[in-house]
């Protein structure tokens, strides 16, 4: 079993303040293009698909599957190096985007590509929470 993962606080910008504030409320927001409706990731006030600057927030389902992952056995990252081994993964949300994140609440060796996961939040104590993913009941 891996150790307790650290909760480093993100450094929000004017483009991402609302996103991080919502995580502290247990909500995972996606920026969505008002013109072509495409969910945008990472969050930004510009649609990289159609070029529109008309975008707004919507709440994601928080459900997805593991697209790919790595079990980290050696790491120099402060906080994380005390929690080896741990899992870094891309989770593909139901809405389409693939988010870099951690898989938690399971043994690293039990993680598989295609595994169903749901979002869980880890408070940073600084007005934000980290969105990680845990195995979901199938």
């Amino acid at each position, binding site marked *: 079993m891996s150790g307790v*993962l*650290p909760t*480093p606080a*993100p*450094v*929000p*910008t004017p*483009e*991402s303040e609302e996103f991080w504030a919502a995580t502290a409320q247990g909500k995972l927001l996606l920026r969505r293009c008002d013109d072509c409706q*495409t*969910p*945008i*990731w*990472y*969050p*930004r006030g510009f649609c*990289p*698909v159609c070029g529109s600057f008309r975008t707004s927030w919507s709440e994601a389902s928080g459900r997805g599957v593991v*697209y*790919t*992952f*790595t*079990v*980290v*056995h*050696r*790491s*120099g*990252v402060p*906080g*994380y190096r005390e*929690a080896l081994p*741990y899992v*870094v*993964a*891309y989770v593909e949300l139901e809405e*389409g*985007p*693939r*988010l*870099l*994140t*951690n898989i938690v609440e399971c043994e690293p060796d039990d993680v598989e*590509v*295609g595994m169903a996961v749901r979002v869980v939040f880890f408070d940073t104590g600084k007005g934000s929470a*980290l969105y990680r993913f845990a195995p979901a009941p199938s």
Partner: protein
Amino acid sequence: MTIRGKASIAGVYEHPRREIPDRSTSQIHAEVAAGALADAGLSLRDVDAYFCDSSAGFGPISMADYLGLHCVHVDSTETGGSSYVVHVGHAAEAIAAGKCSVALITMAGRPRSAAAGRRGGELTPDMEFEGLWGMAGAVSGYALAATRHMHEFGTTSAQLAEVKVAASLHAQHNPNAYLPHPVTVEEVLESPMISAPLRRQDCCVVTDGGGALVVVSPEVARQLGRTTAKILGHGEAVKHAENGRLDVTHTGAVVSGPRAFEEAGVTPADIDYVSIYDSFTITVIETLEDLGFCAKGDGGRFVLDGALVAPDGRLPFNTDGGGLCNNHPSNRGGITKVIEAVRQLRGEAHPAVQVADCALALAHGTGGSIGSRMGSSTLILGREDA
């Protein structure tokens, strides 16, 4: 207009040291510049174009000042480790366009001897969302690619290990190689897991050092009395996360490769030798597929049976030992890829790994991460009579 046959690489120099605690990075730039110019039979006074990456200081200005260059063309295109392969293409374009006639490309760094400090201050926007999860440096990103490649195509760790084995067989002939001893597939598979599925021996070396190249016009080449390598084709591309729909099973080589082959008027089957960027073993597998040396997904099977081993393998690669065993100066291997390709075309590779009658070579650079966003550049070079 193309660059085909309109410029040549006349001088190359790879810094012989792998730990350089007693030089500044600027000094290493100067040393490799002098070495490459001496190899070409030219001097700093002949240089009218300068190319460097973002580590050289304030773009190309700091080093032009340090070196006393009087340039009419500069370029500091930054695409990570592929930068220097991009620079060769851009230098050829500039020469073909009449903008300059002697272009100097340098790279240098000292990650073993000094803190790199490449970038300070504000995070890039992607890092705000990707820097939180304990990615253990570049290896984790490439491990994410390897996991998915294995899932989709059945690639195995033993197949990845074959890439390292081939590089190590070449490195034993290179007296400057950082890791000069041959390894077996079993030894690779027994090395410590770093970021699964990549093990320590799936990773390139970390070395100080540098290299330089000199690209000249055909008129200059004819006056030099030195065998040159003709630049036949070049392609470059940035591959990114596609609005979060990232596909980690391919690289920017799917774009840069075909553009280079088209410009050169050749196909993968014509290539005698390849320098393939080998930051990690998976980098080579995906790049070989994307360049068309095998079908997508067949890279793991393609490298079996010594296919990459010089001189007699189906596709000899990285005969200097590559980044996996010889040198990956400042975590940027693009320039050594071009240098070894020139050695092969000149017939100046180590005799044990010199490809017989080597007439066409390909050098491919990769920068950034297959696991997020990256630069790719493909260069096709021909022997002087090509």
